[in-house]
């Protein structure tokens, strides 16, 4: 089971091979790619120059393994692989990749969506965005709307 935080470019084929078994004919993969346009806090789109991802590496991999355990509990005979990149990323580069293999495709879709949703809410990774709007530019830590927070 591939679970990793890495500063190297992500290799989706490696993850797919990791979850494709003789029993798992349905493979669903999610790839999150750096977009040029992202909404700012006011909801207005701003142009992204680059992103810088930072992780609490050991803890992030531990939480990702915990997501794999939750997937196994919920959906049984599935295989999951997840990788998240850290460091400097340019537009068009994949930041995160998730692959799920299952005997039936409905399960693979559900488990893959659960895994990326849970990753975005719970895995200790942070993203700094370098942006400009034309009138303004800056660098900001961008928070996921799914992010868990102490209330």
């Amino acid at each position, binding site marked *: 089971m591939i679970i990793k935080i890495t500063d190297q470019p992500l290799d989706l084929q490696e993850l797919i091979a990791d979850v494709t078994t003789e029993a798992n004919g349905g493979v669903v993969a999610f790839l*999150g790619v750096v977009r040029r346009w992202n909404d700012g806090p006011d909801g207005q789109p701003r142009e992204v120059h680059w992103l810088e*991802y*930072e*992780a*609490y590496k*050991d*803890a*992030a991999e*531990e*939480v990702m393994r915990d997501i794999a355990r939750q997937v196994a509990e919920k959906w049984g005979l599935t295989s999951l692989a997840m990788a*998240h990149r850290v460091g400097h990323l340019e537009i068009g580069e994949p*930041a*995160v990749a998730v692959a799920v293999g299952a005997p039936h495709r409905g399960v693979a879709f559900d488990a893959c969506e659960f895994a*990326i949703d849970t*990753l*975005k*809410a*719970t*895995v*200790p*990774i*942070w*993203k*700094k965005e370098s942006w400009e709007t034309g009138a303004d530019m800056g660098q900001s*830590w*961008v*928070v*996921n709307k799914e*992010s*868990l*927070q*102490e*209330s």
Partner: protein
Amino acid sequence: MDKVKLKFFAAFRETTGQSELDWPLAAGQTAGDVLESLVVEYPALSGGVKSALVMVNRRYATRQTALQPGDEVAFLPPVGGG
């Protein structure tokens, strides 16, 4: 004196200027107690840490979690992965 290791990431790393710090731990202190003493030293953290999640030894914990000497403690800004 007993100590814990504090880890800082993202905005908190920038605010403190530190990635990690050894921090004194008195007997019976919780993660919340340590956070209070941290904010006294770094008042600029006081706004941000209100909503911070807590990890002890790389697992999610709470402000009520009792700490042991040598524990690795992190107060986490809201995450942005993916």
